[in-house]
């Protein structure tokens, strides 16, 4: 059975729905992530699960139990807030122990110590939040949310207030902590790297709709629609045509692979070319002209023009330094054929 079932939920403020007939499910022990640009409704989903927004229509079930009538403070769900929302008047220990009401003093002390140990802040229990760095505050917030042993943890843009370096390190750490505790979690972010690094399942949200709920690998290589293809990773849609039951042709040749059922031979399609599908090969008879170059350290991202003028992106190892206007040989390595009908 699924731990969390988010079932056909619609939330509106005014005329336009912020969350539109959305459904997904999270298995026990899984880390899920809602990914989308700001204003797509992802935070509203989180607040509905936490109970801060009254549910307007649909159903949310936790371990089979409907949550709609359960007030926020009685839900066995922990939350880590974007601004951490630590209590400035309490020490780190008191913050972590805040949710442990009704626990015996000794158990409470033990639980707080255990969590501070888990997040690597065993020595900081008597400090106050303002004496900690941003990353440490973030870990206190996580420890506080974990302390009452909730069934599910919600994380709202948990790393957005941190430096880029720290963000990567901490997202790995948080994932390790959650996995070690066997904790299920849902994360909300606008950062693909964070989503891919943290989550087992990622949902791409756009204008209140869930476009695809899938593993990061499948989101990248098998996007469900143009919107997901456009949002996840980089790429260019190149016009082509279905040439057979499992093949299509476009400017760079004919390729075979799995095609969506609704496409038939002769249909006009757009083919998705990722930068890593386009390989630099001096021996290739195909050439393209460098239009723009973007040095990324380990790789170059080249914007190339095919003979027809069609632009494609290519990811090339960084020692292949080509000038703008130069013609370079390219070859396609299409392991996943992705095409959308027009």
């Amino acid at each position, binding site marked *: 059975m699924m731990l969390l079932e988010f079932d056909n939920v619609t939330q509106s403020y005014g005329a336009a729905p912020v969350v539109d007939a959305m459904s997904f499910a999270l298995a026990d022990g899984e880390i899920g992530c809602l990914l989308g640009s700001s204003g797509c409704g992802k935070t509203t989903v989180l607040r509905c699960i*936490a*109970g*801060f927004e009254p549910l307007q229509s649909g159903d949310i079930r936790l371990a089979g139990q409907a949550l709609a009538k359960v*007030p*926020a*403070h*009685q*839900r066995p*769900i*922990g*939350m880590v*807030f*974007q*601004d951490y*929302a*630590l*209590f*400035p*008047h309490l020490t780190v220990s008191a913050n972590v122990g*805040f*949710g442990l*009401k009704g626990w015996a003093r000794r158990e409470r002390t033990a639980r707080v110590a255990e969590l501070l140990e888990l997040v690597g802040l065993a020595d900081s229990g008597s400090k106050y939040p303002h004496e900690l760095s941003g990353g440490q505050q973030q870990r206190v917030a996580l420890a*506080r*949310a974990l302390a*009452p042993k909730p069934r599910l943890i919600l994380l709202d843009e948990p790393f957005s207030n941190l430096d880029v370096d720290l963000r990567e390190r901490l997202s790995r750490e948080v994932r390790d902590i959650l996995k070690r505790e066997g904790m299920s979690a849902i994360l909300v972010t606008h950062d693909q790297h964070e989503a891919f690094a943290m989550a087992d399942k990622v949902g791409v949200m756009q204008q209140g709709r869930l476009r695809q709920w899938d593993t990061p690998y499948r989101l990248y290589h098998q996007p469900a629609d143009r919107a997901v293809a456009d949002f996840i990773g980089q790429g260019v849609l190149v016009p082509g045509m279905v040439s057979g039951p499992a093949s299509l042709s476009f400017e760079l040749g004919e390729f075979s692979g799995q095609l969506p059922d609704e496409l038939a031979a002769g249909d006009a399609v757009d083919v998705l070319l990722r930068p890593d599908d386009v390989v630099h090969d001096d021996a290739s008879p195909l050439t393209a002209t460098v239009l723009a170059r973007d040095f990324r350290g380990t790789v170059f991202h080249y914007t190339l023009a095919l003979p027809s003028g069609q632009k494609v992106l290519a990811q090339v190892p960084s020692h292949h330094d080509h000038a703008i206007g130069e013609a370079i040989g390219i070859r396609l390595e299409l392991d996943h054929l992705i095409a959308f009908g027009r």
Partner: protein
Amino acid sequence: MVLPRWRMVALSISLITLIPLLLILASITRPDAELWSHLLEFQLPELLANTAWLLGGVGLGVLLLGVPLAWLVAVYEFPGRRIFNWALMLPLALPAYVMAFSQLGLFDFTGPIQSWLRDTTGDSSWVPAIRSTGGVIAVLVLAFYPYVYLLARNAFATMGRRALEVGQSLGLSPLAGFWHVALPMARPWIAGGLTLALMETLADFGTVAIFNFDTFTTAIYKAWFALFSLPTAMQLASLLVLLVFVLVVLEQRSRGRRAYTQAGKAAPQPRLRLSGVSAWVASGFAALVLLFAFALPVAQLGWWAWSVFDTEFDADFIGYVGRSLWLALIAAVVVTLVALLLSYAQRRDAKSALIARLATLGYAVPGTVLAVGVFVPIAWLDNWLLASFAWPEGTGAILKGTLLVMLLAYTARFLAVGHSAVDAAMHRITRSQEEAARNLGYSGFGLLARLHLPLLSGGLFTAVLMVFVDVMKEMPITLMTRPFGWDTLAVRIFNFTSEGEWERAALPALALVIAGLLPVIVLSRQKESAS
């Protein structure tokens, strides 16, 4: 439709202010022809003329003192600037009526200033008479200029230097920069300070009573307590409320403008160093204001208090102090609790913000008006209670003449003071902190007790302190609604000054000044920590 619970709370609180106000306003729609012809013939022309003189004179005076002082202290460096920076707020510690009778003592024909002039120069006849329209205006200007000074100084301090630099880069001298850049930019703040000073002028009762300078507040008091005509008092109060509303609208507009004008947090900027004559002129000007607005009046009070200390400092006096403290403490706690409820209601229900603005309107309404406005409905309620239930023989009043009337009037008048302190602290508790606490299992009262109260403790303390001191100094409400036996220091001062016994009034006045210093210290501390 069922209103949300917390909006009901906010609405109930707003009634404390709105019932008296609406009742007073409603009385204007039921004019009594006979009463009005009497008022028009004998009282109104003088009241209106006096009020116009006061508003015009005090308005001009507080601008002429407050704005230049603020500019000097904010932008220039001169000897004593750091002290003047906070010391120029000190006159706020003197209730205007205390300022009034000590200035009368100082500047009267027999007072120390004129005596000294006669002794040294042989002539003091050129000193203008203090018992005059000009004298009242001068006293109120000295008492109320700090409102303009405070707001203008904060505006200049945050934008003054930068405005000057912009002006200088465009070829303006500092003085031209003041006129063409800084002054127009600071206008919303200056207007805010000015309207506060004018509201205090309209509300003033003690000063004009001491000067026998009849305004609406003294006329309301006399109509009630000398002519025993509550209807006349209500009609006069309704006119005064109309004047007040004009000021409230102006003040709210200046607040709105302030929200749009970027004051920003400027980095600490180097001040322009004044040198030579101009430095001493600046110091001299500030020192002179401080001398006349604080040092001399306090010295005069101290001298008088010392001269009568042996006879006046007795068990009686201790009794007055005790009652004042006790009453102020009760009122401060009540007002702060109501303010906390109102602020929390705004938190729980966003639409209560407008209700809160109505509920806190009382800061602009003179105490005399609120005293009448609270008394009248209580009297009606009393009559209804007396008629509806069986009471012991001879019962004449149930609620009338109890502490309740006075506490309601205080709450209406000072809710804004308590509310602004509590609400400022409430705003520092973020929505996500509340949600975090709910997420961790707290709700309702537990949430308030575990999260809000600890975080609000500083704001609650400030609220109690500010209201406490305001109630200690409050004169007309206390005078008009006090239960038998609840004479406070302010009442004692009124009784002595209406007999001209200034020496005897000095000791209670000095006690009030000492209490009044507390919020000034808090205020200057807050400014320091904010900057």
